[in-house]
C-alpha cells in the first residue's frame, strides 16, 4: 500500500478524534486531587497491606466473632482490638466538615463512626504540628511524625486499649536528622508495633516527588535502623506491612512504570543496599502496581474507586490473578467536586466490610450488601498526607 494512501486513510479515521473537545482544566485538577487524597489516605490506612498467609488471618478473624468487628489483632497481643468501629487520627490542620474544631487545637483520635474524641494529642515538641501519621492494622496503635526546627524529626506512638481508652503519647526512636526540604510523605507501622517504615522526598508546590527520596525502616522496640533504600518516584510512593510479620510492600510509581516490591525487614540491611536487589515483586507475582493503599490487610485483594462515566465504582481486584472480583456503585462522578473525599475510607482485614464516601454520600458495604449511612462527619478532600490515619 502506498504511503500517501495509508496516510489519507489515517487522516480520515482520526479526524473526528482530533476534534474531541478538551474537558475543563478543573476536571484535570479534580483527578490530581483525588490521587493526592488517595495517597494521603493510604499514609496510615488500615487498608495497610497485606499479603501474608491469608489462612492465618482468616482463621483469626473467624474466631473473633461478629462480622462487623473491624480489627485484627496479633495472636497473644497485649493490645487486643477494642470492640466497635475503627478509630481515626485527625490532625489539627484538618477539619471534619460538619464538626466545629477550634483553630490551633492539637491532633485528635476519634471514634470513626461517632466522631467522639477519644484522645487529644499534644505534640511532644512545642511549636510544631504532627506532619504524618500511620495506623497499625486494627487502628489500635498510631505512630505520629513531628518535624522540628532543628532539622530533626521525632516519632511518637499512642495505643488504644481493650476498653477503647487511649494510653499516653510517648516518643519512640531517638530524634532523626532529615535533610532540608525533605518531608515524610508516607508512614506505615506493622501490627505488632515493632517496625516503622517511612518514605521521605522533596516536595514542590505540586506535591512530593523523587529523585532523592528514601524508604527507611526502623525497629521500634530497639530503635535500631533496619534499612534505608533510595527510591525515585514522580507519581507516588507508599509502604505497607503485611499481616503480622515484618514483610513490607513498597509501591513505587513513576511515569515509566509502577511496581510493588515485597521485602522481609526482620533483619537489617547494610548501608548502600538496593530495594530492587533486596526485594521481589509482589501482587500476582507480576510486579505490576496496584497503586498505593489499595490492598486489604490479608492481601487477598486490592480495592479502589473507579470513574465509570457518570458514576464512581468500588472495584475489587484479586491480588493473585488481577481479575476484577466485584464492582459496587458508591456515588456520582459529579460528587468529585474537590470538596469531599471520594473513595474507600476504611476496610476490614479481608475486605468483607468496607466504608466508602463519595461527596456527601457515605456507605457501609458488608459482604457486598450496601447500606447508606450518615457518619458523624464528612471527610474533606485533603491536599497532603498526614491529616488522617485509619
Amino acid at each position, binding site marked *: 500500500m502506498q504511503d500517501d494512501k495509508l496516510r489519507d486513510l489515517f487522516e480520515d479515521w*482520526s479526524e473526528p478524534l*482530533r476534534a*474531541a473537545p478538551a474537558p475543563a482544566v478543573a476536571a484535570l485538577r479534580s*483527578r490530581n486531587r483525588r490521587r493526592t487524597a488517595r495517597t494521603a489516605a493510604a499514609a496510615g490506612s488500615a487498608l495497610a497491606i497485606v499479603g501474608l498467609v491469608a489462612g492465618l488471618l482468616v482463621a483469626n478473624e473467624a474466631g473473633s466473632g461478629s462480622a462487623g468487628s473491624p480489627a485484627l489483632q496479633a495472636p497473644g497481643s497485649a493490645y487486643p482490638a477494642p470492640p466497635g468501629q475503627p478509630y481515626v487520627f485527625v490532625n489539627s490542620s484538618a477539619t471534619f466538615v460538619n464538626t466545629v474544631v477550634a483553630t490551633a487545637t492539637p491532633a485528635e483520635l476519634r471514634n470513626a463512626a461517632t466522631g467522639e474524641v477519644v484522645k487529644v494529642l499534644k505534640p511532644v515538641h512545642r511549636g510544631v504540628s504532627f506532619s504524618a501519621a500511620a495506623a497499625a492494622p486494627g487502628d489500635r496503635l498510631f505512630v505520629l511524625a513531628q518535624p522540628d526546627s532543628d532539622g530533626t524529626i521525632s516519632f511518637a506512638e499512642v495505643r488504644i486499649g481493650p476498653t477503647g481508652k487511649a494510653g499516653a503519647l510517648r516518643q519512640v526512636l531517638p530524634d532523626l536528622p532529615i535533610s532540608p526540604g525533605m518531608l515524610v510523605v508516607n508512614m506505615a507501622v506493622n501490627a505488632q508495633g515493632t517496625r516503622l517504615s517511612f518514605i521521605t522526598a522533596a516536595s514542590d508546590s505540586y506535591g512530593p516527588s523523587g529523585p532523592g527520596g528514601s524508604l527507611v525502616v526502623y525497629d521500634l522496640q530497639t530503635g535500631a535502623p533496619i534499612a534505608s533504600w533510595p527510591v525515585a518516584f514522580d507519581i507516588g510512593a507508599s509502604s505497607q506491612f503485611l499481616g503480622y510479620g515484618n514483610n513490607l510492600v513498597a509501591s513505587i510509581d513513576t511515569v515509566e512504570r509502577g511496581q510493588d516490591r515485597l521485602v522481609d525487614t526482620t533483619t537489617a540491611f547494610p548501608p548502600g543496599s538496593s530495594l530492587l536487589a533486596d526485594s521481589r515483586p509482589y501482587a500476582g507475582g507480576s510486579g505490576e502496581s496496584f497503586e498505593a493503599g489499595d490492598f486489604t490487610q490479608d492481601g487477598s485483594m486490592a480495592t479502589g474507586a473507579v470513574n465509570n*462515566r457518570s458514576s464512581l465504582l468500588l472495584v475489587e481486584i484479586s491480588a493473585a490473578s488481577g481479575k476484577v472480583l466485584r464492582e459496587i456503585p458508591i456515588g456520582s462522578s459529579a460528587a468529585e467536586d474537590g470538596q469531599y473525599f471520594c473513595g474507600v475510607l476504611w476496610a476490614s482485614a479481608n475486605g468483607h466490610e468496607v466504608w466508602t464516601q463519595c461527596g456527601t454520600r457515605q456507605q457501609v458495604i458488608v459482604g457486598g450488601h450496601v447500606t447508606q449511612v450518615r457518619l458523624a462527619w464528612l471527610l474533606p478532600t485533603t491536599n497532603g498526607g498526614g491529616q488522617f490515619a485509619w
Partner: protein
Amino acid sequence: LRHDEEFEEFYQASYGRTVALVAAITGSRHEAEDVAQEAYARALARWSRLRGYDLPDAWVRKVALRIAIDSGRRLRRNLVATVRLGAQRRPAGPDPADDLKYTPLGAALLGLPVHERQVIVLHYVADLPVHVIARESGLSVGTVKTRLAAGRRHLEQCLTSRPEGVA
C-alpha cells in the same frame, strides 16, 4: 496565572491529537479520552517543569502511550473493567466508543502486534518522522524502519482481505 494560561493553551491545542493517538492504540474513544485526560492531569501537576521543555507534548505523548500500552497497570485494568461494565449496561444500539474497533482500519490496527502498532501510530497519526520516533521510543532508526515496514505490510494484508467495513 500565566502558568495556568500557558497550560490551558497547550492543553486545548494538543488534546485532540493525543486522543487520536491513544485511540489508535486502544481502539476505544472513551478509553482514549480517559487515558489522555490522565496524561494531561499528570502534566498539569508538573507544569512548572514541563513548560520549560521544548516539546511538552512529547512528554504527554510518552505518558499517554505508557498508560495505554502497559496493560498491567491499575488504570488499564480498571478501564477494562469499566468497558466490561459499560458493555453489560449498554442499550441495544452500538456504543460510539467502540466504533473505532469496527472500522476496517481500526480492526486492522488492533490486529497488529503492539510494538508495530505503536510505531505505525506515531508515524501516521502523530505525524512523527522516523528519527523522532526512534529517539522518543529509545529504539534505533533501523528498528523503527523495520517495524514500520512490517506494520504497513500487515495493515495492507488485513485491509485488502477485508475491503468492506465490518460494522
